[in-house]
């Protein structure tokens, strides 16, 4: 009895700490940036949303726009993409029972990149970057690749996951090759989509966030119920069946949900590597191997991590920005190595 209670208290405590950290990080990220807005202004402005506190506080239009139209959507997007990618990465690692799997394993990134490059080739840039064309192309590019991978593994009648991964790698390479080909023959246009290929939250506004984030949040909500299933899948496909889980069906569903989440994340912010691979591992080092907890915790850690990285992207060489895909690795690798060393865990791949 005591043991279960302790487990529950631990889970609750860790979750509370993570939620508070996330809130602090969001607040901190609202303050920093090129425009120098005093802390007290941001705090008062945020508090004026609650009843009876600073209700008569008026903020200048300029600052209001910077906080709520530029910084806030960007922070929300970074948080959601970070959470989505790390949950999707964790799911991929769980389903494939391979700690080297990441959300782009089956070629979503290359598919999205190819789709955006094709769109860039045929649609004039001014039209392309208005409305949600880039996002739509990125989303469906990734989705088409995933569907192709599924069809290939369906036609080979293989129930072996190596076939799925090999099909993914083959399609991924094909898409990358075609992307490079298109970029080469239209080099004057290629600069405009570089921000997509390296990932960026620069163009994010509320409209994009509103379309893409529900998919990711629903995905995380869905996956949070399958932590126990992921735990059991670790003992193998047939053994999971002996415990009443239709492992093949579950794998297909889980991969599909994680892939849809990844497609949305790519649509929102372009291709951001590292997060989906390393944040789940960081969480494993911190919290152990229980997927029920890992799904939730890696969501939080992913969100906190990507918001902080995006902060550094905005501020380090302001007003210019560093591609976030490069920054994630730059910030994340030393952090990860640090934890790897201090935990001294026998890390079994």
């Amino acid at each position, binding site marked *: *009895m005591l*043991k*279960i209670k302790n487990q529950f208290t631990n889970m609750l405590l860790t979750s509370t700490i993570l939620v508070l950290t996330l809130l602090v990080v969001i607040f901190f990220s609202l303050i920093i940036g090129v425009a120098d807005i005093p802390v007290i202004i941001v705090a008062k402005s945020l508090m004026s949303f609650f009843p009876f506190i600073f209700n008569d506080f008026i903020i200048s239009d300029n600052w209001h726009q910077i906080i709520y139209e530029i910084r806030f959507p960007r922070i929300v997007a970074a948080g959601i993409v970070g959470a989505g990618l790390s949950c999707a990465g964790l799911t991929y690692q769980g389903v494939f*029972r391979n700690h080297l799997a990441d959300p782009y394993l089956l070629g979503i990134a290359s598919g999205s990149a190819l789709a955006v490059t094709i769109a860039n080739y045929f649609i004039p840039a001014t039209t392309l970057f208005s409305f949600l064309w880039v996002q739509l192309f990125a989303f469906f590019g990734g989705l088409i690749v995933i569907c192709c991978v599924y069809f290939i593994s369906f036609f080979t009648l293989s129930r072996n996951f190596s076939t799925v991964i090999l099909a993914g790698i083959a399609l991924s390479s094909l898409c990358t090759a075609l992307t490079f080909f298109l970029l080469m023959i239209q080099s004057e246009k290629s600069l405009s989509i570089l921000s997509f290929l390296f990932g960026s939250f620069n163009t994010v506004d509320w409209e994009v966030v509103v379309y893409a984030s529900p998919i990711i949040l629903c995905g995380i909500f869905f996956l949070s*119920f399958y932590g*126990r299933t992921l*735990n*059991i899948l*670790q*003992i*193998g496909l*047939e*053994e999971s*069946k*002996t*415990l*009443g*889980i*239709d492992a093949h069906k579950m794998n297909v569903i889980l991969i599909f949900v994680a892939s849809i989440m990844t497609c949305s994340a790519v649509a929102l912010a372009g291709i951001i590597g590292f997060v989906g691979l390393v944040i789940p591992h960081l969480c*494993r080092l911190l919290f*152990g*191997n*229980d997927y029920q907890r890992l799904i939730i915790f890696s969501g939080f850690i992913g969100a906190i991590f990507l918001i902080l990285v995006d902060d550094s992207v905005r501020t380090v060489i302001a007003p210019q920005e560093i591609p976030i895909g490069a920054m994630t690795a730059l910030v994340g690798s030393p952090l990860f190595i640090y934890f790897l060393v201090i935990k001294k865990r026998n890390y*079994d791949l």
Partner: protein
Amino acid sequence: MKQFASVSICNLTLHKSNSIILNNINLDIESGCLTSIIGPTGTGKTSLLRSIMKFEKISSENILIFGETIANLKLSEIARKIAFIHQDSVLPGGLLVKDYVLFGRYPYLGFFENTNVQDYTIVENALNQVNCYKFYNRELITLSGGEQQLVIIARAIAQQTPIIILDEPTANLDFGLSAKLMSILQHLAHDEQKTIIIATHDINNAIKFSDKLVLLKKGKIIAHGNTEHAINNSNIRDLYGSNVKLTTTLNGETVIDSNY
């Protein structure tokens, strides 16, 4: 009410890539017995066990569990009737012994349900039954091979199924541990009226501890019944060649010896 055998297999034939693995198997396995399936390597022991779990492509009408054809049973229903231990169980890293044994409770949990105090008590009892309670909070992969095997059996016990099937449970175990494991299985069969079915190469332990033996050769049953009846020199030579023979030890146990 008619008493059904726990597992009935009728006219089971299994083909794999044009060769016959199991040839017209008819077998009734009773509860409260430890039944061992013995035979040379590649004779279809594992395939027979896997067929019971619907892992092999057979016409499922051939196999009945407590009178019900397995074709009509969902995976979760089978999981509440049969616990199955594979020959090479995969043990994920970073998992504690208690959490692994707790997997055995999964078939009983609803989608929104989580494990409760009762489940933990069942886990503790299961670990006690195999003398592994001391490993409760240990990481599974840090245990020795034999200890891991006992914990895997604890998982099957925690599943609280009337039937437990084990594929070569004593492979890779030392002599003492094999005997200990077999005696645990025998105890489960006799005291808790479970149906224990094992496939094994450990023939002397099988003779010592089993109530029933099934002798399988090239996919066919050559003898089946109480251990003392099923085992004789002609059957044993039929299975393992003319260089083996039955002998009796000083304390009256029947063992198999070879002339090599």
